[in-house]
């Protein structure tokens, strides 16, 4: 065993560097390239995702998924006979930098589409900037309802779920299994508040009660004081609404305090990346996933998983990988359908676009809803396999058809108007 354990990272990094070097070269050569014939001109997607900072792992997977999609599309002859090119920029999960990168991609690199984001704040800000620049923006992984809700716009689409879908995905399962008194640990920002609000609405409707709600600042490392309060409230279920490191730290400390022995633990959003970072003892509970790699009865999924592993040094695709994959495909399909790169025409083509099975990779239909531009697909509630080995860490108990649980466009408060 070597001291430096970089089995996961080595190949991935090399490919990243290689591609990024290619992107660098192409931007340098850009003025020269524009002299080529129109048909050789690549169609460009600019992807803004975090490669450094807290969300680097999630962002990296979204990029890897998108890369795979672009490679597949180019192998089949590109889009409208033109090659598809992916230009990746690091957002460092910093909104200011993301907006700046968006403008750079559109103004200088002349990309035709923008996509990306892990955090909702980046998604909202880039959405607004893209609207300014009359450019389509595909939110890959920022979950806040508002992106396709009251702050929706004609140019913005989203592949990942809304907070409502996340909570509705496994609400019934948790309620049935653990009971009706819930205690929440909520990260103190809009994403957390939204999840809490959505769960609470459903909980009250189903006749449950809230045993308490601890608001923890985002980025909290020590959750012990919140867990103490949760313990003394003695609920049926402890609902963890955080994401990423917040979730990891909460679960780890809950385990140390033995909370999982006296109450059920669960939440709306589990990610393979998070599961990977958890020690064995902290892997438990009922959760919702937005996509899972192990779907033996769904066609094309195994092919996708194989292809992804081959391109990424054996790493298994996560929901984030699929978001990136589906987003890039969706943009390509819509362009092909619109037979144009005009933003409004492509937007119209994306409205109601159904992802083909080899892209959707799920048992239900996956459609970008015309009214709010939200992808309506599936949710995957399930339980964590205790003692499981990577990547086999999650047992999907049910695949929920999102169209059955989604709120209507009117409820979400979205009204899309195109500029004349």
């Amino acid at each position, binding site marked *: 065993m070597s001291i430096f354990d970089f089995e996961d990272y080595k190949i991935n*990094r090399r490919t*990243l*560097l290689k591609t*990024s*070097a290619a*992107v*660098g070269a192409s*931007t*340098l050569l*850009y*003025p020269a390239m524009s002299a080529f014939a129109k048909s050789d001109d690549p169609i460009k997607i600019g992807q803004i995702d975090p*490669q*450094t900072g807290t969300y680097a792992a999630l962002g990296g997977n979204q990029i890897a998924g998108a890369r795979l999609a672009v490679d597949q599309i180019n192998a089949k002859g590109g889009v409208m006979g033109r090659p598809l090119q992916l*230009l990746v*920029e*690091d957002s*460092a999960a*910093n*909104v*200011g*930098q993301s*907006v*700046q*990168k968006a*403008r*750079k991609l559109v*103004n*200088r690199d002349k990309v035709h589409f923008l996509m990306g984001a892990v*955090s*909702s*704040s980046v998604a*909202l*800000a880039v959405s*607004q*900037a893209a609207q*300014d620049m009359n450019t389509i923006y595909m939110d890959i992984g920022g979950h806040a309802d508002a992106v396709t809700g009251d702050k929706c716009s004609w140019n913005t689409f989203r592949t990942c779920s809304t907070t409502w879908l996340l909570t509705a995905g496994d609400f019934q399962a948790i309620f049935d299994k653990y009971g009706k008194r819930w205690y929440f640990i909520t990260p*103190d*920002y*809009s*994403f957390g508040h939204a999840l809490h609000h959505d769960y609470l609405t459903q909980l009250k409707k189903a006749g449950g009660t809230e045993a308490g709600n601890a608001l923890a*600042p*985002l*980025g909290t490392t020590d959750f012990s004081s919140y867990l103490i309060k949760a313990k003394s409230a003695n609920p049926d279920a402890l609902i963890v609404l955080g994401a990423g490191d917040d979730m990891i730290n909460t679960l780890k400390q809950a385990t140390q305090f033995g909370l999982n022995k006296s109450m059920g633990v669960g939440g709306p959003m589990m990610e393979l990346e998070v599961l990977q970072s958890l020690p064995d003892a902290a892997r438990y509970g009922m959760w919702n996933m937005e996509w899972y790699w192990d779907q033996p009865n769904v066609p094309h999924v195994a092919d996708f998983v194989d292809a992804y592993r081959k391109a990424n040094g054996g790493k298994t695709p996560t929901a984030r990988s699929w978001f990136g994959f589906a987003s890039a495909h969706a943009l390509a399909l819509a362009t092909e359908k619109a037979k144009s790169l005009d933003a409004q025409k492509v937007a119209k083509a994306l409205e109601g676009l159904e992802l083909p099975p080899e892209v959707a990779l799920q048992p239900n239909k996956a459609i970008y809803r015309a009214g709010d531009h939200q992808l309506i697909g599936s949710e995957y509630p399930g339980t964590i396999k205790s003692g499981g080995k990577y990547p086999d860490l999650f047992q999907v108990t049910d695949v929920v058809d999102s169209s059955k649980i989604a709120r209507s466009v009117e409820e979400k408060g979205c009204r899309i108007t195109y500029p004349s």
Partner: protein
Amino acid sequence: MNATTIQDKTSTLGGSRAGMSSVDLPRLAAALVIWALLLSAPFWLPLVGGYTVLGTRVLIFALVTLGLNLLLGFTGGLSFGHAAYFGLGAYGTGLMLKFVTASTPLAILVGVLVGGLAATLLGPITVRRKGIYFAMITIAIGQMFYFIAVRWNSLTGGEDGLTGFARTNVHFGGWTLDLHNPTNFYYFTLFFFAIGCFVVWMVLRSPLGHTFVAIRENPKRLRFLGLPIGVYIWIAFAISGFVAALAGSLYALLNNFTSPEDMNWILSGDFVIICVLGGMRTFWGPLVGSVIYVVVQDYLSSITVNWMSFIGAIFVLSVLFFPWGLLGFFQGRFKK
């Protein structure tokens, strides 16, 4: 040499390390070239692979570091927390536009006042200590604002940042300046950059500026000329705070957004290294440093995920080999 010759030469105390006279053709020529380049930037930037917004960003960073350099390079006050005043300017402007007014100039005014007054009020606490201690206190006070911005969700939007405002067009009588246009906003920013340059330039050639430089050079001597040193460091702190707030305000308008990251100590560190890169004791150092830093960062982060290592290496190497910055380096050359 007689008295008349002395009178011919105006002092440019602190204007350069060499302390040469200012009726100095090379320097005048350099200033003219710089202004010509800045004024024509939107036209030549795309030709060299840049874009207008990048130019605006350079100007904003140059503005904040121009102010910071007054404290850092000329007064010798090692502030590592200027991002706080930059960020306060940004939030002040953003909140004004979001909740109070649709007037961009008014929002800028409020942003400048918020950030500048915060620096003015906190100055007395910081200037009680000097050297490394001063640096630590300025960092810590800066972080206090950062955490307030992160935690005061209902007002600032917390970690998500402040959205939902946008710069509006400016009206002068019957004439309207369309600020949505990036090129127009570049010139709008350049206008404020010019004001900042003028203020700093004027201060530097005034007795006030001379006093700042004297504090850097020998605070003890100055004290025994009867000056309360702390008051002057405070003044430098306050002026640089106002300039930083102005830059922050423009930054909020550039992005139509602001977030706690705009107040973080990492950004303060970036500001300091920009001053050092360009040349701490030179007037144009901050602009040169900003050009290098912003362009290199923009370029590197596009071509490698390891851009942080490269930026870090810039810090390390510039400290080891170019402590007086690019301009300092060249001026040193010419002097010899």
